[in-house]
């Protein structure tokens, strides 16, 4: 039992550079493994969400069919490789559709709010609120080195380079071909900025079936990282920005309602935290407008004067319901069946 060693490190860093190199190397490998794994998983998620939309939306049976159909065509040997290409094609087609097809596809994809006519249950715990920027609602799709924004009717607004993943042909972009994004935005003319109000796909990963809570979390953590929120530059034509999102408690409501924002407000949007991204009108997104938070509550003439009479255009819907032709429509009556029969 000899004297026990007690020498401690003296004037030395705690870890050697060699150990540091090993660790950095391991970190890189772990990151690369995560990326490879993530990419493999995305191959599935994209087939899942985009492909059916391309053929025939809202028929889940087709998903399975179209997916299994792919396989027999491929030679076993190079299957791994070829399958990637097939998937890329599928994904890109959706974002590359042109003319009528594109219009139809995109017109079906946006999630649209209903009017807020009563207070939903658990508003303070289950809902977010934010001030909606005034401007053109559009989908922004970045893929294969370019970015395209499409309005609600599907027509193209801008085609431009952006710092979004796969949004420009820069040497810096390390994203692979299957990386693409779809963002739900409002283009705000005065500051030429795309305000992102929802994230549908990000870097090849579909968020369609994720909760609002997760999509907003993802949106806020990912968008800034790419540099998309930076000032415009040669490879980044328009600035993107997030909007401040609040919990629907008193404080949050007050902030959204009266708080200053860098854009012109057009009402408040309320989003249910548990909702998935869903095409068309949904009661899980609600819009509120009054004169304090929107300039488009009542009609004005070309001089900005409020006319004596407000006009309203009514539509008789196919099922006998009577609605305003507002966006979104407000249903305020229904013809009784007997009357419809008679007509």
């Amino acid at each position, binding site marked *: 039992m000899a*004297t026990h060693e007690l020498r401690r490190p003296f004037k030395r860093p705690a870890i050697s550079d060699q150990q540091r*190199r090993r660790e950095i*190397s391991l970190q890189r490998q772990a990151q690369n493994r995560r990326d490879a794994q993530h990419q493999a998983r995305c191959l599935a998620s994209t087939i*899942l969400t985009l492909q059916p939309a391309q053929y025939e939306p809202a028929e889940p049976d087709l998903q399975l069919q179209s997916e299994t159909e792919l396989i027999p065509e491929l030679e076993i040997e190079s299957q*791994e490789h070829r399958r990637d290409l097939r998937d890329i094609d599928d994904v890109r087609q959706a974002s590359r559709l042109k003319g009528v097809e594109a219009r139809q596809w995109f017109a079906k994809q946006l999630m649209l709010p209903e009017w807020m006519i009563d207070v939903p249950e658990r508003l303070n715990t289950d809902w977010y609120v934010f001030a909606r920027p005034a401007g053109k609602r559009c989908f922004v799709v970045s893929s294969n080195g370019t970015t395209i924004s499409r309005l609600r009717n599907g027509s193209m607004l801008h085609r431009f380079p952006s710092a979004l993943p796969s949004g420009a042909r820069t040497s*810096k972009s390390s994203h692979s071909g299957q990386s693409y994004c779809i963002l739900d935005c409002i283009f705000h003319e005065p500051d030429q900025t795309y305000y992102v109000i929802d994230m549908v796909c990000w870097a090849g990963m579909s968020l369609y079936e994720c909760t609002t809570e997760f999509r907003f979390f993802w949106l806020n953590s990912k968008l800034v990282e790419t540099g998309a929120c930076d000032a415009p530059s040669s490879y980044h034509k328009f600035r993107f920005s997030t909007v401040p999102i609040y919990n629907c408690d008193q404080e949050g409501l007050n902030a959204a309602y009266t708080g200053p924002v860098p854009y012109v407000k057009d009402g408040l949007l309320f989003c249910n935290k548990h909702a998935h991204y869903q095409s068309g009108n949904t009661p899980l997104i609600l819009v509120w407008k009054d004169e304090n938070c929107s300039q488009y509550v009542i009609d004005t003439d070309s001089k900005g004067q409020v006319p004596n009479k407000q006009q309203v255009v009514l539509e008789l819907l196919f099922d006998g319901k009577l609605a305003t032709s507002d966006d979104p429509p407000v249903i305020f009556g229904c013809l009784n069946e007997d009357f419809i029969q008679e007509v």
Partner: protein
Amino acid sequence: MEVTQVLLSAQAVDATVRKHAEDTLKQFQDQNLPGFLLSLSGELASEEKPIESRKLAGLILKNALDAKEQHRKYELVQRWLSLDVAVKGQIKACLLQTLSSSVPDARSTASQVIAKVASIELPQKQWPELIGSLLSNIHQVPPHVKQATLETLGYLCEEVVPDVVDQDHVNKILTAVVQGMNANEGNNEVRLAATRALYNALSFAQANFSNDMERDYIMRVVCEATLSPEVKIRLAAFECLVSIGSTYYEKLTPYIQDIFNITLKAVREEEEPVALQAIEFWSSVCDEEIDILEEYGGEFTADSDVPCYHFIKQALPALVPMLLETLLKQEEDQDQDDGAWNLAMAGGTCLGLVARTVGDDIVPLVMPFIEENITKPDWRQREAATYAFGSILEGPSPDKLTPIVNVALNFMLTALTNDPSSHVKDTTAWTLGRIFEFLHGSTMETPIITPENCQQIITVLLQSMKDVPNVAEKACGALYFLAQGYEDLGSSSSLMPYFQEIVQSLLNVTHREDAGESRLRTAAYETLNEVVRCSTEETARLVSELVQVIMAELHKTLEGQKLSSDEREKQNELQGLLCGCLQVIIQKLGASNTAKYAFMQYGDQIMNLLLRVFACRSATVHEEAMLAIGAFAYATGPNFAIFLPEFYKYLEMGLQNFEEYQVCAVTVGVVGDICRALEGKILPYCDGIMTQLLKDLSSNQLHRSVKPPIFSCFGDIALAIGENFEKYLMYAMPMLQSAAELSAHTSGVDDEMIEYTNLLRNGILEAYSGIFQGFKNTPKTQLLFPYAPHILQFLDSIYMEKDMDDVVMKTAIGVLGDLADTLGSNAGSLIQQSVSSKDFLNECLSSDDHLIKESAEWARLAISRAISV
């Protein structure tokens, strides 16, 4: 057989005689092991035999019972256990008998062998009478036997794990030991053996330390022993105090005042080895408090095992002056002597730990000492003041330190240039490094380095790199931390304008004649690496030029022929440094697409050089070169395929390297890199690689830390070659399955084991992920179906165990998704039955960790599809 003569011949000066004797012994052992061991024990026990043969007999016996290498040790243990009981009984009797020998060396040797036998037999519940028989007549025996008995108990406590000795025996051992230590014990040899035995017995004394009376008694005896007239006893007693300070920190309160007085006196008056232990006591108390404070953030909550008693904070006003005094006791040549450890070094180190423990409070206590001494004519005073300053830079808040550092920085830079003493310059350069390490970086509110003073700092450091080796090495270290502070700043780094100048100066250092001293060359290359890591796009061209320089240097190391072993070692070391540097450059340039294409023109040359470095050795592969290859494969991507045919043999060699497990682990990582780079093109090599990996896993010689990365590597391979992994399933799956069973439950083990278990789980899960994703959308997915129940069960059981870390959680929930994704509706009902698909998934969905959440969202998506169709 008469072994005496053979044993003596085995120690002969004449190599031929020695060799012959060794062969004879070996032969005897191989032919008749029981007879051999009996002869040895008889030799050791026999008072008529010469001490030389008795000692060697004991040593060979000891080596027949234990080995350093785990696998060999296991074999020896099994061999002893399978020996005939009568033979073992006879050997043990001889050993016990030797404890009464009049020859000290024979007794001491026997003590050690008895402890080895005990370490094998006690866990098997054999030799139950050992402790009883050792202690039965300890009060009646002559002092030399008492001494040997206590020494045996000491060795026994060192060798045996506490839980195989029952409390009754522990009590008896402690009683005997503490009585032997008592001041009444007239024989110093007995008292010393007892004190040393207590050191080892402390870890057995949990129960006794929980009893106030017993603990008081033990502490009193230990403290008294620190006052013994015999220095060896005092030293052993202080060693006990150090061990008590960390093992029984929570019991120290009643004694801390006395211990403080004892250690204070010892530091001031004692012989150096004893004084060093006295300082070490406070260093270990700091270690304990730092751990507690780090773990619980200073708040004592219901979860914390041990509260922080703030002993250091309380002792501060008296402890700090005592430590500052030690700083003035430097040795002239301590900076050149790598093995040096003296009062000043220990005192400064302890001061640094105290600063980390108490933070801001230390600053006002040390500043007057610095101010008083820093300008004194005696180098000792200036050096002590600087060392004190450097020591307290970690711990106190930047708010507290920054104003002081702003004033001191200029003084330090002047001292590093002009001070006549190398000692002072050495410590000054080190202190600058500490300033940059702890107070410079993007997270600091007020930067201490501005574009204005940056140039001066760099000029002084580069100048100082021409100083004597130990000073130059510290200057390199300071530059390392200066660069590191700019790591996150990118193009706004003020260092970049000086990039070329810095690189040139560092290269000059590596070429110094005396760069082999004070690890100067290593420090210069390490700093070069850090400067490259922190470089920006603008300097990418300069980094590319550096590639050529490093390649030329590496080329030079390959020219020498017929090297002596000394030269070979130097070549090896230099190649390591150069490959390390290449690795850093490749990784840096590989991360930027523009720079990558520029440097890929050297791809062939780099690879050829690395292959030649591998070829320098016949049996092993160079770890640093392997690390560089990994970075290179990642940067090269699919083009790496052209190098693989030639590189493959070194890859295989690396995978076969059980002994240097780091090399094996690094090579396993490189296999993953190559899989991702080549994807399907790696297929022709997979038979060889998989064979080797499977061999590694079944080997009990391989260090356990390599096993988790091997499992992950299965996943990498499967993901790369897809359904071609089919032919390995029948080998890989059972291994994964049995490892999964082992790692499912960790109950009742220590933190280290839980950490390892989680690493293992992560590796297994990554393998499953890769396999599922690799097979996805192929006609062979049904081959995986039979494994699904077990995998789901594995996920459920690690979820229930509640001890997985975040990484495992993320990987595990991902596997659930992969399984659902690949097996689809076939596995729908299986998935729905699992706990994982409900509680575990929900827990992950509501996790704060976004990686877990991301995997969970994905799993939810895949599951909803699998169960909906």
